[in-house]
């Protein structure tokens, strides 16, 4: 079978392992490894193989949801770097902010996280309010371009 991974195509027929239930067996040497596979998020899959966990991403031509890599704030937007609840918004629309200034405080699983401004600028939009539940990678605030 041909797999189209984000790192490039792979033909699994060329790999000398076969799967029996939850076990991989090497066709030549007979070596066995326990294995499990699950969907993680977006195009990402987790492979548990003999006690190690690997993540594999499938190549995608369609729309994708924000995974961990889509959760990075950039120059103009501040995104949630974890799923959680907004505790407070420290700035208002139109306010001038400096680099590193705390903008939004959120909480997940009893852990607090302060999201800081990626640069100096003016707040263009505030998209959340205290109490709002947000997903990983949700845009919380925009700065003027």
């Amino acid at each position: 079978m041909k797999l189209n991974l984000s790192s490039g195509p792979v033909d699994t027929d060329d790999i000398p392992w076969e799967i029996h239930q939850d076990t991989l067996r090497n066709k030549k040497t007979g070596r066995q490894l326990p294995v499990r596979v699950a969907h993680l998020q977006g195009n990402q899959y987790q492979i548990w193989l003999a006690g190690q966990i690997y993540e594999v991403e499938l190549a995608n031509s369609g729309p994708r949801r924000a995974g961990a890599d889509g959760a990075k704030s950039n120059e103009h937007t501040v995104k949630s770097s974890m799923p959680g609840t907004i505790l407070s918004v420290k700035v208002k629309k139109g306010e001038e902010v400096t680099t590193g200034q705390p903008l939004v405080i959120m909480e997940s699983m009893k852990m607090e996280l302060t999201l800081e401004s990626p640069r100096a600028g003016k707040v263009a939009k505030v998209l959340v309010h205290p109490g709002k539940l947000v997903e990983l990678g949700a845009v919380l605030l925009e700065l003027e371009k």
Partner: protein
Amino acid sequence: MQMKKVLIANRGEIAVRVTRTLQQMGLVACAVYSEVDKNALHVQCADEAYALGGTTSLESYLNQDKILKICQDHQIDAVHPGYGFLSENAGFARRCQEAKIIFIGPSPEVIDGMGDKLHAKEKMVEAGVPVVPSFNPGKDTSPEQYAEEAEKIGYPVLVKAAAGGGGKGMRKVESADQLASSLEAAQNEASKAFGDGRVFLEKYISQPRHIEIQIFGDQHGNVVHLGERECSIQRRYQKVIEEAPSPAVSPELRKEMGETACRAAKAIGYSNAGTMEFLLDDADKFYFLEVNTRLQVEHPITECVYDVDLVRAQILVAQGQPLPFQQEDLKPRGWAMECRLYAEDPSRNFLPCTGTLEVYEPPVGPGIRCDSGVQQGSIISVHYDPMLAKLVTFGHDREEARQRMVWALAHFPVLGLRHNLPYLKAVLEHPEFIAGHTHTHFLQQHNIDSGPTQVPKSGLVALAHFLQAQKPVSAGTSIETTPFQELGGWRLLESPDGMGGLP
């Protein structure tokens, strides 16, 4: 008074663990649950279950009115608070008492007294327990006085919250010029976290071990200790790996620390399970940190080493019976370790992770115990603690327990969200951990590599098999209902153009 029905005012693994013992003792175990927990494991295990409603902790597991109402409506004799939530809430313990419901824990007076860290410390000094050199300021202490006292203690010093816990409101101050700003930051953090901005100064001990003594008292004035647990492997003051006994504690030191803890516990009239936390420096000097007036998360390692069921003992003592064990019967044997499985992503600075546990298969075998609060299919939400389970191993000696833990971690598939299991295994295999050179800065100081990231080719065979087993999506089906559909435009297997989905 003989109990019949016990309500567990908690969730997750501790609620499941308490349920087991209650059932073994022939008692009726009653669960309570929030809206999001209605299908949780602790609810399924219980003999009776009552809804608290709500999603946040305040609306549910901290809702004293609702919990007490359930107790009264359903003839419940006692409440086991577990740890966290209402377990160290003296007000709740008092309300239980007034409602003639047994609170399984120490008296409200003891909880009150030990909950305030400044007060607890004073009590310990009175009982002759060594404490870390410190300064407790009054209401009008000036910054100059703080600076003077910090000089007396000697830098580095710690600024700590009086009502604190979990590292909140805590700051390490290296030198005099940082003191003023650290005081202000800690006071701010403390008043936000605990509604109490009082802070105090304490000597900072470099590379200490966190050693805690399990104590147990009854209502007849008897107090025993069940040796120590070492909990030095911590991140941001959150314990990650614990072991009992400690590689640093000799039988003589154990006796000394144990007797000191018992003396202090007697002085404050302690009953039921409790823990005295100490710092141990490299000269075998120990300093009192705090008393936890509840069952600890890491209690199973003590249960292994002393062959006792601490929850059973809690129930007996709460019924007014004498302690089920005497000091001379309590002899440690073997070695136990505990790893805490957290839904936290080590690759992203341990931020919490949510999702569905698609695969969850706890290991079994000799000397292995897994206290889980979840099962395969459980949804991990943002609302509660990120701890999923505690994996405990037991062996004749430290190395056997460690090897069993390494094996157990390697045979514990957990998929569907990111977690710290590979990280735990890396710590267990670190040469300094193997050598027993543990201290509270271990995880900060040592670079823990949680393993390779490039998937072996064999793993891709399994991935292909997994994808093949999933049903393809027909055109026009709405996106966002099953994980497969989140693949968007990705196509599997032989497509009509024979390209197998390749571009």
